């Protein structure tokens, strides 16, 4: 039977989810009208973590690049922001984007080294790189060396007129960052590179023999993650107004928490890190007084989820209810359905 086929991603559910997301986005964009300063502050932190977790998920969940060293790029982003505004005189928002570009550029030579290590050794190697960056940052005496530095008042005030306008600006920057990072990830995964990643994930050897350029695609993903993570880092330290090597390159803050979010929410799904970040912050608001016991509980929860429900909350929802808010697979749909049959579709 003849008939043209088209490749589509969307389903009815995903279109409804997309509409709801736009509504939520509009509501969030208006948040300065209805939310208190402390809530805006908290939301900005959540945005930064959603961005970090989405980037980690792109690496580990979709590309098999399990990193425990993404704090390297958070720190690079933060330090780049401080250096570009203090020495380069750039506006903080311009500096934030440039910091992302710097993160992406640094990722290229780093990948050249780290891609020599496979699997779990890649993970620890990425940690070594983060340590090297931390030690190098503490040698930068003009940015306070090991004890760090604060963003000078003239730069803070140059951002916008008045404290409130500044808070709004940082908040909107955070929201824009989430949109950019999520949008970039979805576009990437739905592109032909995304299809290639899927094939690598299923069988790397078969993908290679079918002409998929595995190393180049992994490099692309690693660079995109460096870009997004460094921008998130720049935002985080723009909000904190103070940076030090230990804070900027903290494995706990920028990798352990991020991994918990991705694991709890669901690795390998777009909505996973978002759900994970929300769950993480709800837990944190309720339990952070417990200090190190709270961290032990997080570790335990991550282990239990990894063993019992490795697809996380989002994966469980998808399995239980067939709810696929952001489908990434390609569906072949007959664009001109013939008279006698319903449109057939096949999942690829």
């Amino acid at each position, binding site marked *: 039977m003849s008939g043209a086929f088209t490749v589509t991603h969307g389903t009815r559910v995903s279109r409804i989810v997309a509409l709801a997301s736009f509504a939520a986005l509009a509501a969030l964009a208006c948040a300065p009208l209805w939310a208190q300063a402390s809530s805006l502050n908290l939301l900005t932190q959540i945005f930064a973590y959603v961005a970090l977790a989405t980037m980690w998920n792109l690496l*580990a969940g979709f590309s*098999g690049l*399990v990193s*425990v060293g993404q704090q390297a790029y958070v720190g690079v982003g933060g330090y780049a922001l401080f250096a570009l505004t203090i020495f380069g005189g750039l506006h903080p928002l311009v500096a934030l984007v440039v910091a992302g570009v710097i993160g992406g550029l640094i990722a290229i030579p780093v990948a050249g*080294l780290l891609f*020599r*290590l*496979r*699997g*779990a*050794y890649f*993970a*620890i*190697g990425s*940690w*070594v*790189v983060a*340590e*090297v960056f931390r*030690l*190098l940052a*503490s*040698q930068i005496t003009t940015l306070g060396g090991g004890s760090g530095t604060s963003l000078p008042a003239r730069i803070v005030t140059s951002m916008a007129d008045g404290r409130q306008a500044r808070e709004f600006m940082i908040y909107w920057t955070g929201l824009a960052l989430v949109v950019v990072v999520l949008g970039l990830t979805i576009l990437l995964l739905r592109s032909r590179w995304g299809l290639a990643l899927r094939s690598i994930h299923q069988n790397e050897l078969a993908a290679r023999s079918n002409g998929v350029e595995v190393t180049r695609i992994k490099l692309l993903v690693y660079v995109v993650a460096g870009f997004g993570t460094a921008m998130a880092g720049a935002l985080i330290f723009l909000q904190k107004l103070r940076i030090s090597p230990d804070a900027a390159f903290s*494995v*706990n803050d920028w990798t*352990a928490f991020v*991994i918990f979010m991705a*694991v709890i929410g669901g*690795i390998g799904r777009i909505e996973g890190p978002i759900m994970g970040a929300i769950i993480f912050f709800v837990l944190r608001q309720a339990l952070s007084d417990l200090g*190190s*016991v709270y*961290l*032990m509980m*997080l*570790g*335990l929860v*991550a*282990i239990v989820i*990894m*063993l019992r429900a*490795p697809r996380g909350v989002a994966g469980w929802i998808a399995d239980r209810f067939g709810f696929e808010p952001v489908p990434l697979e390609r569906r072949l749909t007959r664009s001109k359905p013939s008279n006698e049959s319903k449109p057939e579709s096949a999942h690829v």
Partner: protein
Amino acid sequence: MDWLNSILQGVLVGGLYTMFAAGLSLIFGVMRLVNIAHGDLVVMAAYLALVVTQALGMSPLASLLVIAPLMAVIGYGLQRWLLNRTLGDDLLPPLLVTFGLSVIIQNGLLEVFSPDSRKLQAGAIETATIPLTPDLSIGVLPLVQFLVAVAMIGSLQALFYRTAWGRAFRATSDDQSTVQLVGVDNRHVFGLAMGLSLAVVSVAGVFLAVRANFDPSMGPARLIFGFEAVIIGGLGNLWGTLAGGVVLGVAQAIGAKIDPGWQLLAGHLAFLIVLAVRPEGFFPKVQA
């Protein structure tokens, strides 16, 4: 002479890094598992040594008679009840479960022992030195530490290539399914390997605790030192791991000599240079 002294100290410290690395190398060799909690287990052993020496009045080295079997049992249990469930084709479960374990151990130690740094007293041996020339002398403790590391690698090598356990380890490493056909229970073999790894970790922990101050946050850096020694020496080669530990120790000593702030950086850079020019390490044996 100053330089020679630094390099010699670096070589001896390399013994400690070899001990961090040996346990890591062993379990990777047998079951391709990378244990992110390895460094935290070293620190946990150091705290166990602290408790045992204080409670039983034993010397640090004698406390190993208690700690090594205890850690071996913990390792066997950990592998049988937790880590065996994570092994398979997927890379994520073992990595993330051991990562979770690392967070639990680190914060558990913090909760029980506080963040204050501690040290294990070993008595007169700590300050004893052997003069080599009028300008050059070596500490007895670092020397003992290095000799123990050499003996440890020698014993592991003998165990791997001359005993029934070693045959089971190597066979399981070569082919997990075939080894089950000839009556080897690979779950048990993995448990034994982890038990042995943690017995090795306990020795490393005691030397760590005697050598300098330690605190609950030190684990990840010990993991990284051990990992660097393994990669520099070449995967799957135990004597190579010793060479890797020494290279790392010497690089750090030279870095510290140039500028105290460069000690750790120099070690990491040595690792990155090896990765750049000889990614399979100096003496490779297996492909990762």
